[in-house]
């Protein structure tokens, strides 16, 4: 059964917040870091695909998968995981898959900024 992945899982964010003793400003700091490095990773994925290099794609996809999971950006995480898996098997993803990651990234970044606005950090 395939559950609908959330652009932003509030549950994951809440668990993260609880695990650091409810320190919301720390969560905000993490989100800022994620927004900065996530942008880099998405760009690296796009560059690797443009260069037709599966090898170069593995690491940014892997890291984006992991940090997205930490912050609850489940769609980005899922798509990155698929890219990583494919790249490990030597396949360079289709342009539409790359575009899907970019779109998901933009949506997740917007949702995270919205969350920060909501909680007033």
């Amino acid at each position, binding site marked *: 059964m395939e559950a609908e992945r959330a652009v932003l899982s509030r549950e994951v964010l809440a*668990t*993260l917040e609880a*695990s*650091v*003793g409810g320190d919301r400003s*720390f969560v905000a*700091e*993490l989100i800022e*870091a*994620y927004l*900065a*490095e996530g942008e880099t990773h998405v760009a690296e994925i796009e560059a690797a695909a443009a260069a037709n290099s599966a090898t170069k794609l*593995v*690491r940014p996809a*892997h*890291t984006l*998968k*992991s*940090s997205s*999971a*930490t*912050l609850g950006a489940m769609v980005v995480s899922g798509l990155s*995981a698929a890219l990583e898996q494919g790249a490990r098997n030597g396949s360079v993803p289709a342009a539409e898959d790359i575009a899907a990651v970019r779109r998901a990234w933009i949506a997740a970044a917007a949702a995270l900024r919205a969350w920060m606005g909501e909680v007033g950090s």
Partner: protein
Amino acid sequence: MTSVGVALVVDDSVVNRLVLIRHLRGLEVEAMEAGNGVEALDILRSVGGAIDLVLLDVMMPELDGYETLAAMKADEALRHIPVIIVSGVEELDSVVRCIELGATDYLTKPITPRVLEARINASLAAKRLHDLEMEYLERQRTLTATIERQKTELSRFLSPQIAALISSEDGGKLLAGHRREISVAFCDLRGFTAFAQQADPEELLGVLGEYHRMMGAAIIEHGGTLEHFAGDGVMIFFNDPLQQEDHVERAVRMAVTMRDRFAELASGWQKRGYELGFGVGIAVGYATLGRIGFEGRYDYGAIGNVVILASRLSSQAGSNQILVNQRVYAQVEQLVQVEEVGELTLKGIPRPVVALNVTSVAPASPRVTEAASA
């Protein structure tokens, strides 16, 4: 801030590093961070001694987790630092590979604080144990060096055999006292008292120095144990602490060697006007050997009639005489030429002693090889 240790967090993701560092602070573990393996190795090589634990991501640019781990294990100074691999649950294959490369443990993301705490405590405990072991080894090295130095110093003051005995495993038992058959040789100078009265102190010390050097070399050549020097008097015994089947022969050969070498020294002294002669007494018998003296000043010594007998024979020996009793002669009869001295009445010895003067001894090895080839 008090900390239970210092961890180096190696991950290319700032998010992952922040999360780990945050958890580490909660456990009072101080954190340092590196964005890839190259940075990590730089930090480890500059402040490696301060780092108790490395939390290592596998997939990183520049130098990945495997390469970093391999480089650490190849480096003598970093090899012992525990490494915990931080990975996703789906990466168990890479975890296995890391453990094979020498990683201590692993953690899966997302990090669960309690699991992190357990892993970190286990690794820090292992590291502390290792540090203690190193400290202990270092102390042991210092101690061994001190003992070696003491042994060297000791062998300058004591007969080498006794210095070795003190440091040996059954040293304590032997020092405590034991009975054994030994050969004892007493040597002293004839005319020494008169010489000591007329000579300048420098001259006296010069002559004694030459004499002691000659005696010392002969004692060592024959494997004797020097019990003491007392001015011109020297007591040497054989068969203890080192056991020697041929101890009687050794004592006799040593005495003859000493007498021959003394003759060369004496001819030099004679030109300067000093008339000195050399006398030896040798006896064989049982003695009690071990530590003799009192707390603060002990000697390794021999007590028994054999010692008294050798000493008395030495007092009776004329210039260039080596006096032995019949028991000694019986054991070296085939090797030596003797002249009879007759019965001597010795102080402290109830019955008269038949003494013989050894005039020469057959060369050592040829006789043995001839006998063996015959």
